[in-house]
């Protein structure tokens, strides 16, 4: 008998509250329906009612986890329109903030993924170490999230010389932590058994569904805006783009962990270059936005963010179009989750990083009687029990 499992629409810790309807046949997911729109706040329209300098604060509040990505792409778009060249100091500071954000976002995802498969220790650990990155961001910008660092033609705050050793120390302390997580995932036979071959997104499907970011790179699609279309300081630093080929949840986790090493590498190089630049030169004065249009891109922790801005010469954008990475990535669940068991559904849906969390209301409803069979907590329990069984099988 075919049953429907609605997942959502409300879960904390997620970019957009969305609603998944899983059609199940026994244990197997046979189809999935995705409904979004619960988080619509009319930001594109609001943006056209605000001054160019106010818009970065607005687009920052599209998403709290990638709260630098949207202003980053927006200022790239307006600067593309203006055609200005930025001082080197601005480029380095922007890249540092962007990479710090990637680090904290990947730690956040790692913790949630650990929670879904029943490793609550991983959850607590990774959120504990994430606090150190939030502290550094607070010292630099004055806020733990929503840094408000970006403005058209520059940044709002400088990174003074005294701060640089502190950031370097944070990077040094973070490396052994990432090593630990890498070991915990790569060496654990239970995690191998639990995540390998689960939620596979093949390269063909990845291209067909236009997925971006770590989701695409885990499936063997070698794209990264930072390398392919460099902006800010990314053309001046050396870094690798980790690409894996299997496309399962295991590879998606490994890609994110490898990316964290690259982020630290980029931050270190930017800090070294920042030391040589004179302090204070952190903006180009922009008085007037001429008529025209511009596009800006940024590689957010979840993939490519795209902003388009059109100006008619007034002090407000006439049109502001935003495309966030999760929009494409969520749709790929349609192939990744189908054919899996229900106990794998939670981690598969979470693997593209629209993070789910504890208090979500998921119910299994019998299609004929409308009776509630399983709650979201029950679903997580199911997933955690599967890990327990595997642990026993491996004698742990």
């Amino acid at each position, binding site marked *: 008998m075919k049953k429907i499992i609605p997942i959502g629409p409300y879960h904390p810790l997620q970019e957009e509250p969305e609603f998944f309807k899983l059609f199940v046949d026994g244990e197997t997911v046979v189809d999935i329906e995705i409904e979004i729109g619960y988080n619509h706040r009319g930001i594109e329209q609001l943006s056209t009612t605000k001054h160019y300098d106010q818009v970065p604060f607005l687009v920052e509040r599209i998403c*709290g986890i990638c709260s630098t990505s949207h202003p980053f792409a927006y200022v790239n778009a307006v600067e593309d329109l203006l055609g200005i060249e930025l001082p080197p100091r601005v480029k380095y500071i922007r890249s540092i903030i962007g990479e710090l954000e990637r680090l904290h976002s990947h730690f956040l995802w790692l913790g949630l993924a650990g929670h879904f498969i029943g490793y609550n220790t991983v959850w607590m650990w990774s*959120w504990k170490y994430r606090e150190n990155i939030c502290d550094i961001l607070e010292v630099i910008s004055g806020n733990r*999230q929503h840094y408000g660092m970006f403005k058209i033609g520059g940044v709002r705050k400088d990174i003074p010389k005294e701060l640089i050793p502190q950031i370097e120390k944070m990077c040094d302390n973070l490396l052994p932590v990432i090593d630990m997580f890498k070991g915990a995932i790569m060496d654990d036979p239970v995690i191998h058994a639990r995540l390998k071959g689960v939620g596979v997104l093949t390269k063909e499907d990845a291209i067909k569904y236009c997925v971006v970011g770590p989701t695409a790179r885990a499936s063997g699609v070698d794209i990264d805006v930072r390398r392919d279309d460099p902006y800010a300081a990314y053309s001046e630093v050396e870094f690798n783009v980790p690409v894996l080929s299997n496309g399962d949840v295991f590879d998606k986790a490994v890609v994110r962990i490898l990316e964290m090493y690259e982020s630290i590498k980029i931050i270190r190089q930017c800090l070294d270059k920042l030391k040589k630049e004179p302090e204070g030169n952190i903006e180009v004065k922009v008085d007037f936005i001429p008529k025209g249009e511009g596009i800006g891109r940024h590689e957010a922790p979840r993939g490519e963010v795209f902003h388009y801005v059109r100006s008619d010469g007034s002090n407000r954008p006439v049109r502001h179009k935003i495309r966030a990475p999760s929009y494409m990535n969520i749709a790929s669940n349609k192939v990744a989750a189908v054919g899996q068991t229900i106990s794998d559904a939670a981690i598969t849906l979470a693997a593209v990083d629209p993070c789910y969390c504890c208090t979500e209301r998921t119910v299994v409803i019998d299609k004929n009687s409308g009776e509630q069979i399983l709650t979201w907590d029950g679903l997580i329990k199911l997933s955690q029990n599967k890990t327990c069984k595997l642990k026993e099988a491996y004698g742990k």
Partner: protein
Amino acid sequence: MKLFKKSLLKSLWVFHLPLSPCNNCDIEIVDALTPRYDLERFGIQLVGSIRHADVLLVTGVPNYKNWQKVKYLYEQAPKPCFVVAVGTCACGRGMFKDSLNSPCNVDEIVPVSMYIPGCPPKPEAIISGVVKLVERLKSNKL
């Protein structure tokens, strides 16, 4: 009644309802429960159903797709149920006041017991808000 209050203060269970937030308040709420701040040691726990909860934690601005669900949830909650608005959006909609998809404030739908402003409020601010809620409960002001 004494016993009820004593046990309530030692185990405030929280149901978290995100109404189109940007996520940051939600992250900071979970942050307050994870090792550095660890509100869980005071018996504060996120629960999966409003029927188990004493506190309804609201973040974000209500929109046309979800604003009536707040009331629906509040009616389902066992009383007393305290509504806590976390973040500027839930307190007064902030910059989304003029949005085309935002009908009203949270406190126009359900009675709000506690406002925690900030964008996002730091975990320290959330803890301070919880302490104030507990103190007001103790002195019978709610």
